[in-house]
Every structure is written in structure tokens, then in C-alpha cells.
């Protein structure tokens, strides 16, 4: 029973990783850049959600939507200001810029509001304990999981059914050929940043509700782990990020469940090392050979 309990915890945590990992993977897929500022967008989402709930007295869903909107705007701004001028520069220049943007956001927030943590009020979502086959699941974690799942389904619909989603896939496969179709590559990249950042913002609010404590540097570790999750699933591959995130959450929860909770963070990075050694293209990463 203990095992199932840990599994449930792991899935909740994993769905947060998955939401963040999606942004990493989408952005990588389209501009081949690891956006290291992505974890900080997640942090901004958590704070926007916090202020929306405590300051504006919004409910969970309105706060979630507001955080998503603010983050998607932030994501687009980051791309326009920091990354777009470097699109034809070397990869390392863009990567260093990403780290710079990350530090700027972290310490910008500290400068504006201080480094002290905040606590999400525990009363936003009803927290009933539900007993199921001897396992206790909080109604909160079910709602959180459902929210994540809905967002992921929505993302799949956007990517596969809408015009902008098809443009995103086309640009990520071959930007020049996409231009020949009349696709505006700049707009498509902006849309990708907007959607990816909105998901990170949602993850921030969900994280706050689940773990209560938020602070300006909270994005670093979940950001890195979501990056591991994205690589685990195969960077650039959307279903890979979902599965990678969930898998990583479950692995961590099981490690904690076995009594090695101090090893939790370490295990995530051991996973990264193992993937890079044995399956560098990730779980879903298969190179589709093109015939000539």
C-alpha cells in the first residue's frame, strides 16, 4: 500500500515536471535552444498565482489563467528581446544568454520584492482525504492531476489540429521549407514560446498549491529536473516530455519511499547521465530516416 501511495505522490509531482518539460521540449524543437530561463518563468507563474489569490482574491482557476497569460507574455518578450537577435549566432551564445536571462529574472524578482519565501494559502482548493483501497489520496492532488491532464490534452489538440500547431511542427522540422509554405517563422516561434511559457506558469500555480512554499529561486531545481525529463523522453518530442516528466516524478517518489529521500535529487541526475550514455536520443527519440 505504501508503494501505491508513493506512486500517487510521484504522479502528482511528475505532472508538474511534465508541464515544465513541455515548454523546454517545444522551444528546443523549434529553435534548438535549451531555454534555461524556463524554470524562472515557472517561478513567475507561481508568484503571479500567489498574488492573484492573496491580493486579488481570485479563485484557483482564475489565478491559474492569469498566471498562464502573464507567463506567455513573458515568454514572448524573452524570445523577442534576448533570443531573436541571436538566431543566427552560435549555439553557445544563445545558451549563455539563456543563463543570463535566468539570472536576471531570479535576481530581478529578489530586487523587487525581496528573497523571503511566501506560503500559498491552504484553503484555495478543498482538501478532503479520499480512501481508496487503503490508499489515502487528497482531493487536491486529484484536481491538480486533472488540471495537468486537461492542459496536456489541450496542447495535443493545439499541436495536431490547429493551423498554428501545424505551423509549429513544420517549422521545427524544416524552417526554410515552412517559409516556402507561407508560414511566418517569427510568429510561429513566438507562439511556441507563448504556449510553452503558459504551461510553465500553470505548473507554478499548481506547485504552489501542492507544496505551499514559493520563493524566487524555486525555479532552479524543478527547472533542471524538467530539463532532465525532457531529455529522458527525447528532447523536441512532445509526448516524450509528458512521459519523461511522469516517469521522473515516479522514480523520485519511489526513491523517497524506499527511505532514501536525501538521494531524491541525485537520482534525477543519475537518470540523466544514464540516458546520455545509453540512449542519448531519449525514450521516444528515433531518427526517422528520410529516403532520398
Amino acid at each position, binding site marked *: 500500500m505504501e508503494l501505491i501511495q508513493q506512486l500517487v505522490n510521484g504522479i502528482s509531482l511528475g505532472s508538474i515536471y511534465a508541464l515544465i518539460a513541455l515548454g523546454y521540449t517545444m522551444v528546443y524543437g523549434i529553435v534548438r535552444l535549451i531555454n534555461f530561463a524556463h524554470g524562472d518563468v515557472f517561478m513567475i507563474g507561481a508568484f503571479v498565482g500567489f498574488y492573484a489569490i492573496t491580493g486579488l482574491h481570485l479563485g484557483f482557476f482564475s489565478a491559474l489563467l492569469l498566471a498562464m497569460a502573464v507567463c506567455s507574455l513573458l515568454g514572448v518578450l524573452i524570445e523577442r528581446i534576448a533570443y531573436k537577435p541571436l538566431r543566427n549566432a552560435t549555439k553557445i551564445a544563445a545558451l549563455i544568454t539563456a543563463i543570463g536571462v535566468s539570472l536576471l529574472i531570479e535576481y530581478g524578482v529578489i530586487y523587487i520584492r525581496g528573497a523571503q519565501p511566501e506560503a500559498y494559502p491552504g484553503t484555495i482548493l478543498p482538501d478532503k482525504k479520499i480512501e481508496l483501497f487503503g490508499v489515502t489520496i487528497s482531493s487536491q492532488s486529484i484536481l491538480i492531476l486533472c488540471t495537468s491532464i486537461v492542459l496536456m490534452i489541450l496542447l495535443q489538440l493545439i499541436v495536431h489540429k490547429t493551423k498554428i500547431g*501545424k505551423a509549429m511542427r513544420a517549422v521545427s522540422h524544416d524552417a526554410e521549407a515552412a517559409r516556402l509554405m507561407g508560414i511566418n517563422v517569427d510568429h510561429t516561434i513566438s507562439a511556441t514560446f507563448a504556449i510553452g511559457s503558459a504551461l510553465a506558469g500553470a505548473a507554478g500555480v499548481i506547485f504552489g498549491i501542492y507544496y505551499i512554499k514559493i520563493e524566487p529561486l524555486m525555479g532552479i531545481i524543478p527547472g533542471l529536473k524538467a530539463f532532465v525529463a525532457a531529455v529522458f523522453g527525447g528532447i523536441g518530442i512532445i509526448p516524450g516530455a509528458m512521459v519523461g516528466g511522469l516517469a521522473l516524478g515516479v522514480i523520485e517518489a519511489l526513491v523517497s519511499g524506499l527511505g532514501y529521500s536525501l538521494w531524491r535529487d541525485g537520482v534525477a541526475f543519475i537518470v540523466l547521465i544514464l540516458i546520455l550514455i545509453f540512449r542519448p536520443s531519449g525514450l521516444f527519440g528515433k531518427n526517422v530516416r528520410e*529516403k532520398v
Partner: protein
Amino acid sequence: MLKVESINVFYGNIQALKGVSLEVKEGEIVTFIGANGAGKSTLLKTISGLLKPKHGDILYEGQSIAGKAAQMIVKQGISHVPEGRRIFANMTVEENLELGAFLRKDKDGIREDFEKVYHLFPRLLERRKQLAGTLSGGEQQMLAMGRALMARPRLLLLDEPSMGLAPLLVKTIFRIIEEINSFGTTILLVEQNANMALSVADRAYVIESGRVVLSGSAEELNASEQVKMAYLGGH
């Protein structure tokens, strides 16, 4: 319809086109023949807006399109089938064709053009739910052409449609090029296979290291000793 006026195009410091001029009239098939690296693909990329000319002008229906964004040029009716086909391998045949019609909003017209393309290339209809990356080379060429036609272009730019295809398939592709032309689409065709290109073209230009060295009607060039020696394998 299309007038290219002494354009110079550079890749960094390397000049790929040196004062190239040409004209394509409505309804024609015009071909550009030349060896690898002569600047043929560069020319098409410059017309379709992927590259900007440093000097010179490109006039389409009397208006300058030189240096305009690629999506504007597609919108004005020029579609480019790039070298190496460049299909979206991880999408289905149908999705590839949909992307060809990306800028269009006339649902009925798009449906009509789907039918036209499937009629022109029945193989694509058979494989429409298949991932484009699983198609054979010839089928991918058909898909690339069908995708370009989905924009309902008035001028179609074709870059080496025969590349890497078996002789029988090359014949099929060229027959289809003539068929597309007969429906009223003007064609600018770039080829290494001078024999085939001259057999379908009305007029032709010969390009050598970034310069047009010969031009004339397809018959004239077919008969020219210079062309025979260099491109037709004659003696």
C-alpha cells in the same frame, strides 16, 4: 510575368549570382540548365524570398518582389518546390498538402485543389494517411509538387525535380510538369538533366558559375554545339 534584372546574390563573401537576368512569360515553361554549383538553386531561392539580392531587381507582374518576405511572395502566387523536396517527413501526406494551402482561407477552393492534386498524383491519394518520410523518392517528389500546387500558384518554381529518380520516374514527373503547365501554370524549371528539361521547355537559359552564358528557344539550345558538348553528352 517575371523579370529578373541583373541580380547579384552573395553567400557571405562568395558571390553566387553575377548579374543574372531572365524573363518568364505567362504560360511558358522556362528552364535553367547548368552544372552543380552554377547558381541555379540560388536563383530560385532569391525569387521565392529565401535570399535577398544585393543588387538588381525582381519584378513579378510589374511589381518589385526583391527582398520581400517569403510568405508575401507565396501569397502573390509564386510557389517553390525546393531541391531535395524538403517535405515534412514527420507529418502525413495529407498534412503536408494542407500546409501547402497555409495562407488560403477559401475552404471550397482548397477542397477542390485537394482533388486536383490527388487526380494528378493518384499515389498520394493511396498514401494520404501515411507519414511523408515513409514515401519513396519519386512519391516524395510528387508530394513536394502537390504541396506547392496547393497554394494555387500562377508561377511554379521547380528545383531539380528529376534528382535521384529512376529514368522511368523522371519521364513521369516531366509528363506531369507539362500537364500542370497545360492547366495554365507558368513554370520556371531548374535542371541538371538538360535533355529532359529542353524537351519540355519553351525557352532555356544556360548558367555557368553564376552567369548566364547562353539563352534562346529550347530548340535552338538543343541544336547548339556548345550545349551539346557541355550538357547533353554529345560529341
